[in-house]
């Protein structure tokens, strides 16, 4: 975050920061995070997402209110922490984003291409998908992460997701595990969660989606994986692809039992 783009409230908050320069840095960073949390702009995205859920759209002029996110048609509360999961109607394991695509196609009559047209937002270009994800995720805040593993395809997704996590390829030989397989590592000054360790995995998985202050956007888990693969020097991860869902299942399962606390706010 650049110093000339501080949120308004930080102007006031900065003065005591300078005075208390001798205080423990980690404590100060924690305090900064809490100040940010108090005014998380993700709320603006969540509010839009709740409207999109109810809005009639597509050739069938229907809302998403009858979409089954896994807990029954229209049930949003607690749905995110029980995803990804197997859905009989599509005969696939789906995460939230792929499930929303399925619902947009089945209920609203959109083509899959239309449903996936703008998966991530950009400056001046809001994404209906990102807004829906922010809102639906917020309806699981405070709940325990509990992805189901009762269907064979759910277990298969976990197993393949684990293989993908350790899959080294590309010009740099990088796998997810290269950066996220050991405790207490960092890139430059950025701390890296060890996603094979339950505590780190719970905190990491439980904090996405997140409002990124540096980007001014809410980013989803799909976006997180997309951008990790870019830095891994892989080709472009396709939105809601099977590999992305399997990897999400692996990460969700590693984070099982953790408290979901998203959308969070990050640098």
């Amino acid at each position, binding site marked *: 975050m650049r110093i000339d783009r501080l949120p308004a409230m930080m102007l006031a908050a900065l003065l005591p920061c300078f005075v208390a320069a001798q205080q423990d840095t980690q404590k100060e960073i924690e305090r900064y995070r809490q100040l940010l949390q108090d005014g998380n702009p993700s709320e603006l995205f969540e509010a839009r997402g709740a409207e999109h859920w109810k809005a009639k759209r597509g050739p069938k002029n229907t809302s998403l209110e009858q979409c089954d996110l896994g807990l029954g048609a229209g049930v949003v509360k607690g749905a995110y922490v029980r995803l990804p999961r197997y859905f009989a109607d599509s005969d696939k394991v789906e995460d939230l984003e792929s499930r929303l695509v399925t619902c947009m196609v089945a209920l609203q009559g959109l083509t899959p291409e239309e449903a996936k047209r703008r998966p991530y937002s950009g400056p001046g270009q809001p994404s209906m998908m990102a807004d829906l994800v922010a809102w639906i995720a917020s309806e699981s805040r405070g709940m325990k992460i509990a992805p189901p593993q009762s269907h064979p395809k759910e277990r298969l997704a976990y197993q393949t997701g684990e293989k*993908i996590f350790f899959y080294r390829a590309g010009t740099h030989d990088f796998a997810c595990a290269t950066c996220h397989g050991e405790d207490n590592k960092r890139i430059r000054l950025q701390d890296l969660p060890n996603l094979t360790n339950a505590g780190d995995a719970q905190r990491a998985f439980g904090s996405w989606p997140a409002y990124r202050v540096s980007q001014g956007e809410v980013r989803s888990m799909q976006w997180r994986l997309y951008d990790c693969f870019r830095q891994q020097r892989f*080709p472009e991860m396709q939105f809601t692809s*099977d590999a992305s869902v399997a990897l999400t299942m692996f990460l969700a399962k590693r984070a099982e039992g953790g408290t979901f606390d998203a959308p969070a706010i990050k640098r």
Partner: protein
Amino acid sequence: MNFDIIAPAALCAAMLSACATPISDAEAERAAVGMLKASFKPQGQAGVDRLNQDEVQALCSRYPNGLPKDLAEKLEKTQLATIRYPASGKLMGDWREGERIAQSGVGKQFNDDPKGPSGGNCYACHRLSPRELSFGTIGPSLYQFGKQRGTGDAVQRYAYGKIYNSEAFSACSNMPRFGHNGILTEEQIAHLVALLLDPDSPVNK
């Protein structure tokens, strides 16, 4: 969806008893590879061929907790044989250039300009010059690397070789094979050797 993926799951659904045990490791590996290839698309300089693994990548993926000793030794031997030293014999360049290469993280991402030179991004994982406070910890600190080892021929060859192909010295290292995989040129690697070894380099102050 890929046939490889459907087959074990369908089998599992058909025979309930099979559901008690997960599919075999080899099956999961095949399913993952099929899934990956169907899930990515070419973008910029990054084609889907980047998902094809060479021997090192395949072996290291299969043993995430480290290779058995015999396999590790074999892998290090074959990788050692890949190292090409510059025809000029000059292994040490300019540490100032090396510092710039160590700072730069661009290169080989699908959104990077394929024409521009890549960086080494050494500071992402290593401490080098004490002036740079923003360094990562995935790799060991290299501060005073040359001060402790001198600038002899053997040390130069080791440093050059390690950057060229790290797998030759430490099987399944996290460090990219900068020379072997064409990330950095011979000249760039020599500049990095200078950053590590030159007595005037800030690394050795």
